[in-house]
């Protein structure tokens, strides 16, 4: 019946979205690599060396990163027992506190890895411990987003800090318990009724918790959803055709960039674990980036009127909302395809243009995406 509500549709809708709750196949039976989310040990080593040697583009990337208040070792955590992310008027308890603290934890973890300054390690661990000891209830109408976005940054911080000798095994276990008991429950069923960025926030944090807690079942569920999940967040449902149109292209450009950023972060985590999710469906991810970058750089793109897999969000034309406001998501994908895989340059033309334009990449919006891609994901020195 979903078709009745939209004027035109080129895609045949599937039957009712059915979320299978049984375990999918094993995608990663081998022990996880640690640290192994967005940054492996060798990635952190590269950043450290390049920054120490003032080599571009890392140097400029580090300059903007270091200037962020969240990179300060003086950051004091503001952990609370109850956080709510909600759309209801007057709701949204403590979500701002959490968002700031997760950014500070992640950035201090990276500051420690890059500078070796233990003050940053202590700050990162203090934030992680404060929340592990305090945080009990995560709810609200938009809790999937709250748990997914903030969880991913906090888990990323924890995954880096697990190698710090000053963070005790007992504290690490407590932190793992927090992710399992507070962050995971609200995102365990994804968000199939919503725009794809919701599923994706859940997916990337589920994957991250899987790695940090060495829980392969969680990791497998998230990866399985990327390939064939019944929601808008799976790759085939999010980047909906070969031209690279995104499920949220008809909504606005900010959410579109948010969502493809999430997809790429999942691919990067998988890469850290020795898996290639970037190349799925003939580099469909890159096509989504190219389409989105091209449109936001001012050029025209084709748009097929489209109703998403949930049937709730028909779109008849591409959305101009927030067009041209490039988000800090391009360096990671550009570097993967250009400098790791070495695809022909015309295949990542617009992604490179966006990365070039933003360089050095600044913060991701709130806790949405990691940002600072020039520092974090550059693989090749500037000429």
């Amino acid at each position, binding site marked *: *019946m979903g*078709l*009745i*509500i939209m004027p035109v549709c080129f895609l045949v809708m599937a039957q*009712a979205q059915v979320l299978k709750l049984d375990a999918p196949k094993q995608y990663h039976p081998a022990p996880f690599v640690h640290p192994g989310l967005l940054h492996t040990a060798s990635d952190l080593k590269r950043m450290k060396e390049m920054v120490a040697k003032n080599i571009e583009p890392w140097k400029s990337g580090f300059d903007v990163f270091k200037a962020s208040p969240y990179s300060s070792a003086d950051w004091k955590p503001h952990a609370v027992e109850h956080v709510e992310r909600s759309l*209801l008027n007057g709701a949204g308890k403590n979500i701002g506190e959490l968002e700031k603290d997760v950014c500070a934890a992640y950035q201090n973890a990276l500051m420690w890895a890059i500078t070796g300054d233990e003050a940053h390690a202590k700050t990162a661990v203090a934030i992680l411990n404060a929340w592990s000891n305090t945080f009990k209830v995560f709810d609200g109408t938009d809790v999937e987003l709250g748990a997914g976005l903030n969880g991913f940054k906090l888990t990323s911080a924890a995954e880096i800090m697990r190698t710090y000798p000053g963070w005790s095994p007992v504290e690490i276990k407590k932190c793992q318990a927090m992710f399992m008991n507070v962050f995971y429950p609200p995102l365990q*069923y*994804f968000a199939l009724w919503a725009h794809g960025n919701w599923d994706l926030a859940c997916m990337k944090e589920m994957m991250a918790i899987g790695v940090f807690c060495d829980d392969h079942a969680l990791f497998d569920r998230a990866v399985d959803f990327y390939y064939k999940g*019944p929601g808008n967040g799976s790759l085939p449902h999010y980047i909906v055709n070969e031209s690279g149109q995104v499920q949220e292209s008809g909504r606005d450009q900010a959410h579109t960039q948010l969502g493809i950023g999430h997809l790429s972060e999942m691919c990067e985590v998988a890469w850290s674990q020795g898996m290639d999710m970037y190349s799925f469906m003939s580099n469909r991810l890159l096509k989504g980036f190219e389409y989105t970058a091209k449109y936001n750089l001012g050029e025209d793109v084709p748009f097929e009127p489209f109703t998403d897999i949930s*049937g709730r969000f028909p779109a008849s034309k591409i959305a101009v909302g927030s067009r041209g406001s490039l988000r800090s998501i391009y360096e990671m994908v550009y570097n993967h395809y250009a400098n790791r895989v070495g695809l022909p340059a015309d295949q990542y033309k617009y992604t490179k243009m966006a990365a070039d334009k933003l360089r050095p990449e600044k913060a991701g919006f709130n806790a949405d995406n990691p940002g600072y891609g020039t520092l974090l994901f550059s693989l090749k020195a500037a000429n």
Partner: protein
Amino acid sequence: MIKTQPALQILLLLSLLFSLSGFAADGDNKTIYVAKTGNDANNGSIKAPLLTINKAESLAHPGDRIVIHKGTYREMVVLNSGGTAMNNKVTFVAAPGEDVVIKGSEQVKSWVKQKDRTWRAEIDESFFKGFNPFVQLVSKDSSFIHLGEVYLQNKPLKEQKDLSGVTAIEGSWFTTQENGKTIITANFGSADPNVQLTEINVRPAVFTAQKTGVNYIVLDGFKISQVASPTASINGEQPGAIALNGGIYWLIQNCTLSDCKSVAISIGQTGHTYPGAGPGKPEYSDLSKDITTVGHEVIKHNHIFRCGQAGVFGLLHGTFSEITNNLIEDINSNDSYPGEISGIHLAVAIDVLIDHNLIRRVHGYGLFMGPLFQGAHISRNIITDTKASCLYFYNSHGPALIDNNILAGSGKQTGEGVKMMSAEANVFAQNLFYNCSFINEKVPGRSFATSNYLAHTLIIKQTIPALPFDDRWYNNVFIKGGLDKLGPNADCLANYNIYLDGALGSSWGDKQSKPKTGNTGFKLNNTAKGVSLLLNNKILPKIISPVLSPELIGFFTLSKQYIEYPDGKAITVNEDFARATASKAAKPVGPFYQYPAEGNRGQLLFTY
């Protein structure tokens, strides 16, 4: 059906034995007696009963029982306080075996015969004690129809829009106001209204909570009639012959309610409209969020008939309630009541159970659910002879379970049978649909911001448009009308259904379903207080169906729940209409795992 009645009798006998000389006391709790021979100056003991129920109410404390003896009481019982817990209720009960009639009417004996065979009564305003139903229209849209009614020998007469109608039609009346008096002109045929019992309704309710917070009340065994209950609205006032006014944990059983102008039993609370509602401020988000503070009513084994608007009606307090074994019939029977009519209409009714009710002869919808009925369980009801759809589901994200019902729709007459408007995730299992068309659409012209809740709570989780999809049909029997109207792209699931007598399955599902031609002989044999099913069950093809487990029915991703009981336990549909349990997968599809042997005169479905 009346399982409680013998138990009550024993209890009352015991209480009589132990209290022959005064109050029957159980600890601090007492029994207060009311009788037509009583006097409100008495103390209410068995030997010195009170005269009015209101006086008894004023003396009752939590845990007390008020036993009312036979006779006709003409009063509106205003409940000022209730009980405090399930084991500390205030109970109003008819003395066992006695007819306790409570009327919202008064007798009129001042009729003056007119030249044209009609009779005229002039009634002073003081007669009405501040509430005159003969000056109040049922609604703005009701043209001339007033809340007032005139009854001859307990039968309502028909209101006319002018005097000439009264002259022409026997059993009719007309009202007007002259010099501050209410004038009623009526045509009683050959009857003398001053000799025969002639009454007019004058009270808006018979039992009404004076305010919200009157909880834990039991009403048991009364015959309530002739009540001028004003129109109720989900987004407004919700009066009724019995009006809970937001009270919770009420038990209303074994009562007969008839000739209530609008609603018989209102379990709602006053609602309002929500201009400018949206995801940030959804409709109904200002209602209680604590499920323990709402609903939990039990409405069972009542006979409701000849009421204008609805048998049972209400906003919010259908939540966690049970409406079972009621006979609801002849609603809006003269088709004069304006607006939306239904046997039962509940909104914001989370996890409500509507089980084994017979709803028939409704000039409107049989069962009208919505907005918002997540977790509703609609089971084993028989709904027939409705002018509009047997089921009308409106504006909800579900999920809801509709199982083992027998629905005989008006089908081709109105094109309706089961109507779903912006109502998603309805699971139809083991039902028998006769002549039911399915309508599944989005409410045209507007996009609702429809809320769903965290499962089994009133905490709003998401507020997004509700769309016509995610419905499921398993193991149903369709006769004459099927799912074919739902179009080729219905985003729903259907399988293991049987389609008979020209009913057609869906084009998108029903891979293991079976069509069959031949005469089913379907007939609902209505008797005065019940109904039987006649069906040539030999014609039903056997289908090997998997068990309707939560996994098969599926997980509802928006509401993050299976079809579940209120306690959160997932439901496997493995009982039939008769509560027989499926022993094997190969069983007849539909509401009966076993049909009676041939030669049976019909399968009794319901008797009051």
